[in-house]
């Protein structure tokens, strides 16, 4: 979309006041989406975004400006604004020569066009029919499908020129059940960095049926108990716990700045020795995969924690440089309007040795959190909160009743020392997670085996 010779000139302008490094991130994205409500296709949307962001790094500082006008004049203007960050540094003329580098894609890159609208409409209608057929208790079905193609071009002052095409599809189905005055919900979404053809095997029916099953189960849910108890975290979707409780604390910006409780602790024991955590940008088709990150660094498999010992952080270019290490391919951004930040890709815990049955049998009184609706963490202390989307009471080694409105509160490092069993069933969750940090949202993947935590606080409304 941009001529590399123009990018070379823009990079020279960006460095004219003496910045050490500059990059240009140019993006073209189009998203087409449809929403179904009350059995009808309610709305369709089309979003087209394009623009370029120019960053200049000087010491610990970054100057940034973007433009949705891609003319040389507008880009040069943005480059001059970004260069202002370097005002206190010595100026020197630089020349930049870009060399094209090949990118190894980790996603199905075959298609070049969105599918015709009728294809998406049919997916939603099939999901609607399947969910309603599951139970007479189904009162409403809302479904949404989106197909996105993001193309990026990245030019850096150290001479790299890269292009990446990133498809992303998602299909989410929310089912509402009602019985007398009770209402309950179930939501399941799936997709990934692939094309609409994904739904030929992962059918909309399979997604809708799962959502309906959860919504029907939750109709019988009892209020969550309040207080401290044991917790079994479900395989797959339980990975949200890892993401919030540990993952954010291992992003390098918080650690370089010394604000994370994991700052300066590489090589130290930070979790039970049953705990190993990876972050991987190279998994085929996963939402968090990056052939290259948004700074042009190839995605990688990173060992964050091994047998309880902290191994390293997720690095972007700037924080890596300031900490004297290389980027781990973790520099991500929401769009050309934002500076990159160190972010997770697909974060998961590999399998341990326990079976689900053993873990269940060992639990006297607790909650089985099969999946979470969302969570949040405070970085400096690691305190987190999760909402349980599908949860059950466990009493004397048996699942007894579904629970509703359970909120889990805890402290990340504390919970990681309380991991007393890790299941042999690690898997990645359904692909529908999006992570927010500093106002920027990026798609991520999470995964987990069944894990038992010896004690956690459950915030319900039922005291006693």
């Amino acid at each position: 979309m941009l001529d590399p010779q123009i990018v070379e000139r823009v990079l020279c302008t960006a460095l004219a006041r003496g910045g050490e490094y500059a990059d240009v991130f140019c993006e073209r994205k189009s998203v087409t989406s449809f929403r179904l409500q009350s059995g009808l296709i309610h709305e369709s949307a089309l979003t087209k975004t394009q623009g370029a962001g120019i960053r200049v790094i000087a010491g610990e500082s970054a100057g940034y400006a973007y433009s949705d006008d891609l003319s040389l004049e507008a880009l040069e203007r943005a480059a001059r604004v970004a260069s202002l960050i370097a005002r206190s540094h010595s100026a020197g003329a630089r020349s930049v020569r870009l060399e094209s580098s090949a990118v190894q894609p980790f996603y199905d890159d075959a298609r070049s066009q969105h599918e015709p609208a009728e294809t998406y409409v049919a997916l939603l209608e099939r999901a609607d029919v399947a969910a309603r057929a599951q139970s007479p208790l189904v009162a409403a079905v809302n479904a949404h499908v989106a197909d996105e193609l993001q193309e990026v071009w990245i030019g850096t002052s150290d001479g790299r020129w890269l292009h990446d095409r990133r498809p992303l599809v998602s299909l989410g189905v929310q089912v509402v059940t009602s019985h007398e005055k009770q209402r309950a919900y179930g939501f399941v979404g799936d997709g990934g960095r692939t094309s609409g053809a994904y739904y030929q095997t992962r059918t909309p029916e399979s997604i809708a049926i799962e959502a309906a099953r959860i919504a029907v189960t939750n109709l019988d849910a009892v209020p969550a108990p309040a207080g401290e108890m044991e917790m079994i975290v479900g395989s797959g979707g339980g990975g949200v716990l890892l993401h919030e409780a540990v993952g954010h604390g291992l992003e390098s910006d918080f650690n370089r700045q010394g604000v994370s409780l994991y700052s300066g602790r590489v090589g130290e024991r930070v979790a039970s020795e049953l705990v190993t955590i990876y972050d991987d940008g190279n998994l085929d088709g996963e939402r968090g995969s990056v052939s290259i990150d948004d700074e042009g660094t190839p995605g990688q498999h990173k060992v964050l924690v091994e047998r309880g010992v902290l191994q390293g952080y997720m690095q972007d270019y700037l924080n890596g440089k300031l900490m004297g290490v290389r980027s781990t391919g973790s520099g991500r951004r929401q769009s050309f309007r934002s500076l990159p930040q160190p972010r997770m890709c697909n974060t998961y815990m590999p399998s341990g040795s326990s079976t689900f049955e053993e873990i269940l049998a060992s639990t006297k009184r607790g909650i089985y959190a099969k999946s979470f609706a969302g969570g949040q963490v405070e970085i400096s202390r690691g305190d987190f909160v999760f909402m349980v989307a599908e949860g059950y009471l466990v009493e004397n080694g048996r699942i007894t009743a579904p629970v509703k409105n359970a909120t889990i509160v805890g402290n990340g490092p504390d919970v990681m020392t309380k991991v007393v069993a890790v299941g042999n069933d690690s898997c990645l969750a359904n692909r529908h997670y999006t992570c927010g940090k500093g106002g920027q949202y990026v798609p991520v993947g999470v995964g987990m085996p069944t894990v038992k935590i010896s004690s956690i606080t459950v915030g319900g409304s039922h005291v006693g």
Partner: protein
Amino acid sequence: MSAENGISHALELAQYAVDAALRAGASQAEATLSIGDRFSCEARGSAVTKLEQSRSRSLHVRVFVGERKAVLSTTDLELPGIQAAAAAAVVQARCVADDPYAGLPEPCAGDAAGEGELDLFSQDVAAREAQDKLDEALELERRIRERDRRILNSNGSHVGDTVATTALVNSRGFSGAYRSTRAHRSSSPVAVEGSTKRTGSYGTAARKLADLEDAGAVASKAVERAVSLFGARKPRTMRVPVIFERDVAASVLSDLFAALSASNAAVGNSWLAGRTGDRIGSDLVTIVDDGTLPGHLGSSPFDGEGVATRRTTVFERGTLRSLLYDTYYARKLGAVSTGNAGGGAIAPNNFYLEAGNGSLDDLIARTPKAILVLETIGFATEHASGTYSRGARGFAIEGGAIAYPVEEFTIASTFGEMLAGIDAVAGDLRFDGSVVSPSFRVSEMTISGE
């Protein structure tokens, strides 16, 4: 380009998009062009660590083909780009089901308030020098460190502003535009005591510089939030009164807003659906949405579909008087738009709980035993059931005074019980956002801790 030229150019582009959609086969169309000049900077310690400055322009178009609707957003504002995108949106609309409620608002008699009357634009924000803002961010960093020796680090102090132009044109003859400004300053100090770190943050925002809290106040409130919870313990699991400090109180109102939104009520996803006229809250609960308050952040002459904003009493002394509507959901539910159309959703104007009297300290002094909540984490997902559950931090109140800090607990109840249980409201309302609230006390909630 002068401001007037900027506005007339924006109106011309919006008109072009409407015409392009009609030429492509739309029966009705509406285009909103938003132009924003944003500046933000961050300082950490004695260095400016980020400087961002950009202009963004985006065009949002709704096209109707009979009773079928599609929406389009694009940043490509070249005329051929607009034309192609409008045509694509018309094609997409043809796949949508007929919906008898879809369409533009009825043309309204009379003019909406102008930009000037509403005092939305401030020249002191638009003309402020970048250096002044960089200096202020550095000053905030200095002040938080001077304030308390335990502040050894920060997540940055931020200063910035946006100067925006909004132009809306539709095929039923509406054409309107206004400029607005927004300035903010905030700081996030990190306090260290032994091996424990705590972050606090506090910020202020307003349409003009004179309405911002000054840098000293921002620094001291941010530091107070960082250091005050050292030594916090987990409270016992119990039922007690809960006092919501005003920022947290505003977050409760945000959740309440979702239940008041007609889009949720129309699909049964609201505990308030069908309850207009019911007595739900205590006498102290008067909640208003008002887009016409001069100088406030939630004010504008017209909403996201060109309907003039107005004042809507939502709860009057505890009785639910009205939900909040855009044109579509008003038609669907047999009501009139309250001027709450936002970017594709129903959005608040200035949505607030009416203030009572006295400061938060006065309220604490009148409370024998309670939990004072300063911060919550987590978010609700179920507006249908109206249940409320959050992780929280704050203080235990005993004998009308702060006794000790508490954390790692949840507070839970239902919105209905909370509104009915509001038995004291402070006078500390500030319009520093579009959803705001004074501090208030709820007579009883469930605390889950030890």
